[in-house]
């Protein structure tokens, strides 16, 4: 089975944490959609609509631009220094101007993918 990467919102991050109480997921690689709001060398923050921010650990060759809408693919990890849960960035795709995206559609999509996982993700475990 090829790698599946569920589309989620920041509030779902904990469910994909490797040591989550719900038992291990088939994957802890997820997709998030947000606007790049800060870049600090090896970390960056994206703002996901009005669902809050997510801090990402970057690889040296990662290419992100401030103020752009990005779809990111990453592994859910603990941030150093008790900073909560973040994402180790594996890949990102630049969708351009955040104004061109209706974030509400994405919210609905995330809802639908979790409601009807049978056509999106192999589950076996709790969705």
């Amino acid at each position, binding site marked *: 089975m*090829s790698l*599946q*990467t569920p589309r989620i919102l920041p509030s779902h991050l904990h469910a994909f944490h490797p040591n989550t109480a719900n038992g291990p997921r088939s994957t802890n690689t997820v997709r998030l*959609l947000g606007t790049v709001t800060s870049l600090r060398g090896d970390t960056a923050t994206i703002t996901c609509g009005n669902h809050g921010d997510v801090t990402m650990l970057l690889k040296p060759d990662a290419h992100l631009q401030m103020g752009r809408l990005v779809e990111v693919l990453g592994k859910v990890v603990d941030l150093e220094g008790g900073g909560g849960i973040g994402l180790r960035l594996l890949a990102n795709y630049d969708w351009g101007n955040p104004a*061109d995206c209706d974030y509400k*559609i994405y919210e*609905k999509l995330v809802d639908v993918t979790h409601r*009807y996982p049978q*056509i*999106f993700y192999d589950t076996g475990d709790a969705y």
Partner: protein
Amino acid sequence: MDGGYNSGYGGSSFGGGGGGGGFMPGEMSASPAGGKGEMNNNTLRPVTVKQILDASQPFPEASFQIDGADTSSIVFIGQVRNISSQTTNVTYKIDDGTGEIEAKQWIDSATADTMDTDDGKGPGVPGKDQIELNGYAKVFGKLKTFGNKRFVGAHCVRPVKNINELHCHLLEATAVHLFFTRGPPGGAAGAGAGGIAGAVGDASMGGADDYSADRSLPAMSPVARKVYSLLRTEPQSNEGLHCQLIASKLGLPPADVARAGEELLGTGVIFSTVDEQTWAILQL
């Protein structure tokens, strides 16, 4: 629904129907036996890659089925993970986050070198329709197998530049999936509301059972559907519910409820208990 998909299909660079556009003749000779059946099912279905991988084939050479419905033409959107150009075809590896599949687009040598059509252009042809590695692409095609490998014979591959198109496609795929597994949405306030905006419990087997029960029901008016669904869900004794009580719970005129009740009694899905105006679901 079909009308919408068909118009989208016709509008995208290959003329609607079997207009003899290069691909169709080859298609016919490839599967002479299945040709006729396929001609009857030209519906373009939006799907996810996982659905393609999960599609079943009752026997070799049979048409594929998704959610029990014959599916030949499909459309999906994903990220292009690999592009491999051969002399006769271009193979794209497409990943939409639910799985990965190869799409093969045959290069039509007759149109490849003319500038005024987009048909048969492979990558490397500069222009607005160039497919980029790791970019998103929308693939229109037919599901096929070669050996044990499943792939999509692509009619048309074009880049997706607007993220809303991606998200809407996935929602559309869900809507069509629900159409085939649960039947068409019922009355506006009935099954329709239970569809996407319904409770989380909907996704459970119980929810699905409710809908399959709905599907076996005879055609009925929207009011009758509401009455039936209330009778099914409302806690009640084995005497069922009185017509007046149903009317007040649904906020409908008693006369309408009485008429709906007669309709349901007529089709035999409910029965009257202690008196003529008290009804219960007829459990089979």
